[in-house]
């Protein structure tokens, strides 16, 4: 898929983190801008972070116009990604449903639907009867504890094969001359007179005029090496899959009130997720209370799956920002860039974020698409709040 | 005017001290009983205050005052006094006076909460299913008090054995009363739990 190399003394760009963001940025640097003297270094393996642990939901029905435009660009790139990378990434736009169990969430959904439509994104509020038609197994009756009173329906949303995306970008980048260095941990970031000059790793020193931090859950630690503070808290997020069964669930179903979402993979497994663990941690141990809570909530929605067995559960780290929007762009250290703050929703953003970050590296100018997501917004009080659209549904 | 517990009275119904209560006969064995009409008084005062001295009960412990009032140390600087329906605990009057600078509050919370009694040899096993606290005699003997999550409801739990029979009083917010009562019944069904009617203060 990709080759192994000795570390060179210097590169034009060093990218820290071989998740979808780091790998895709390297690919677009080479493919769109002809910059291929690029190293992607990771302390572990390709896709070992959130990019290989997520529940692979793609959608663009966010709440702020900036968010909707940005995520929609990503969904567009995902649509043609298999052809662009010559690698089957198995994108299945099966439709995405966010359920409302109370008036306030229904209100936020109407608001989201209007913002979405204005940005040309297909999104509408539908009734319990229409939900039942899309998901016949769902209990939309009035006698549940939290009856379903409507849903935000987003037909272009769906799921993808996350490993294939990571591998596809890695392979395509490798073909264009990008070097991927696994088991290469960055232990320090060197700066001279407020400018980045390279990184120290467990395999030696690397010089580079541009260093990009794409380390998601570990972003605070890596940025601190360059003396850059981030408004990020790392929370674990857990997920689980069941044994495979015959296909019965087409759409992706999310319930914010019940803190749960579910989709069925092409292999027939049900994939479940929830909200993040309630306290900050870098530990990726799963917990029993997660599975218990998950099961009780899923069965509220679909009582008929009570006999299905959970095969495995796992956790990944999420870099949560105060406004549930990412942080992309320059920092106070010249040449040290960040593409972080991806929280629980960054997989779907990989292509668009990477395309924009590659353009920023190549041209030195921040593309309009990501201008609202700069680091300076926190000090300047310009938050881009996506809490209403991203706190549970990833 | 009639006062009602948040827990629906089952079986034949009567009136006691203005409250509608169940008059179902006492069942014996493992039983659950709604005692919401009992007087419940919440006291808040400094841990080192005169009031604390009069109450004479540290956090996590309960005792009976001479008039039969149950005094329970439910939180830091927080006590719950439980006495018979229609009564007012004598202690509640004693603690107010004296030091006018002391911040002491005495609030009648009788109608704001539920109070149920779970008793019987198996009561520990029932409670263990819905509460994570160690209920062994070494950790929570007769007279032990704690506040914790019981079936996900925040409750004051008082181990208050009844003539040598293991027994727990559960006190919490009124709105959760029916739910908690049903949750305890559900947990106790495998041990043949039964409902007993209201009874006047034992003491």
């Amino acid at each position, binding site marked *: 898929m990709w080759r192994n190399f000795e570390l060179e003394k210097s590169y034009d760009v060093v990218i820290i983190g071989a998740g979808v963001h780091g790998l895709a940025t390297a690919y677009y640097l080479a493919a769109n801008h002809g910059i291929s003297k690029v190293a992607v270094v990771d302390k572990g393996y390709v896709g070992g972070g959130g990019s290989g642990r997520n529940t692979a939901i793609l959608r663009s029905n966010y709440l702020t116009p900036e968010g909707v435009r940005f995520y929609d660009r990503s969904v567009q790139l995902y649509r043609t990604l298999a052809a662009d990378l010559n690698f089957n990434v198995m994108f299945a736009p099966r439709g995405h449903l966010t359920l409302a169990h109370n008036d306030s969430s229904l209100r936020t959904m109407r608001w989201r639907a209007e913002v979405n439509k204005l940005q040309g994104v297909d999104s509408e509020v539908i009734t319990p009867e229409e939900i039942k038609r899309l998901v016949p197994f769902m209990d939309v009756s009035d006698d549940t504890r939290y009856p379903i009173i409507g849903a935000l329906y987003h037909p272009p949303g769906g799921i993808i094969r996350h490993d294939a995306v990571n591998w596809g970008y890695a392979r395509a980048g490798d073909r264009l001359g990008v070097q991927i260095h696994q088991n290469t941990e960055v232990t320090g970031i060197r700066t001279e007179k407020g400018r980045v000059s390279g990184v120290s790793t467990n395999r030696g020193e690397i010089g580079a005029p541009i260093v990009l931090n794409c380390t998601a859950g570990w972003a605070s630690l890596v940025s601190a090496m360059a003396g850059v503070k981030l408004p990020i808290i790392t929370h674990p997020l857990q997920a689980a899959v069941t044994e495979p069964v015959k296909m019965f669930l087409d759409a992706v179903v999310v319930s914010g009130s019940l803190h749960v979402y579910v989709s069925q993979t092409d292999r027939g497994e049900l994939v479940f997720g929830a909200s993040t663990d*309630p*306290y900050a941690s870098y530990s990726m141990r799963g917990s029993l209370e997660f599975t218990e809570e998950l099961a009780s909530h899923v069965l509220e929605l679909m009582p008929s799956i009570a006999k299905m067995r959970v095969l495995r559960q796992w956790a990944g780290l999420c870099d949560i920002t*105060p406004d549930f929007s990412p942080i992309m762009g320059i920092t106070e250290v010249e040449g040290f860039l960040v593409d972080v703050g991806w929280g629980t929703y960054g997989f779907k953003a990989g292509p668009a974020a990477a395309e924009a970050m590659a353009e920023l590296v190549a041209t030195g100018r921040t593309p309009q698409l990501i201008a609202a997501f700069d680091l300076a917004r926190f000090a300047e009080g310009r938050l881009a709040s996506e809490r209403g659209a991203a706190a549970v549904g990833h | 005017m009639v006062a009602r517990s948040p827990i629906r009275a089952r079986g034949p119904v009567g009136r006691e001290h203005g409250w509608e209560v169940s008059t179902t006969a006492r069942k014996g064995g493992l039983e659950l009983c709604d005692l919401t009409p009992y007087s419940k008084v919440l006291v808040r005062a400094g841990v080192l205050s005169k009031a604390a001295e009069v109450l004479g009960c540290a956090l996590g412990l309960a005792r009976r005052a001479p008039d039969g009032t149950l005094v329970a140390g439910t939180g830091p600087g927080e006590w719950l006094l439980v006495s018979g329906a229609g009564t007012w605990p004598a202690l509640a009057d004693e603690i107010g006076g004296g030091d006018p600078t002391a911040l002491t509050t005495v609030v009648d919370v009788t109608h704001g909460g539920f109070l149920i009694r779970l008793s019987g040899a198996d009561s520990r096993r029932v409670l263990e299913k819905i509460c994570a606290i160690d209920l062994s005699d070494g950790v929570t003997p007769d007279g032990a008090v704690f*506040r914790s999550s019981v079936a996900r409801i*925040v409750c004051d739990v008082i181990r208050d054995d009844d003539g040598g029979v293991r027994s727990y009083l559960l006190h919490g917010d009124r709105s959760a009363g029916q739910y908690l009562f049903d949750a305890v019944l559900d947990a106790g069904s495998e041990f043949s739990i039964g409902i007993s009617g209201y009874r006047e203060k034992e003491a």
Partner: protein
Amino acid sequence: MIRIPCPNCGPRNSSEFSYFGELGSRPAPDAVDPAHWRHYLYDKKNPAGWTTEKWYHASGCRKFFAIERNTLTNDVKSGRPFGVESSSEESS
């Protein structure tokens, strides 16, 4: 389930508590400019390892307190009520 040592109630399941995050000292609101205030609000150390943080025992004593917790392992050390200083607490 990790257990949190409440200084009033002893060790309890973490589900009984609300997590309030890293302990930092709040600047006097009228003595700082907005940028500094926002720095206090948003920027976090987010350390990997031992840290001092604030928890609230919602299902128990209903008190705030501080504990030391290792964010890599979730090991916890003694809880202490607010206002009681610990040697490892940094001022920031």
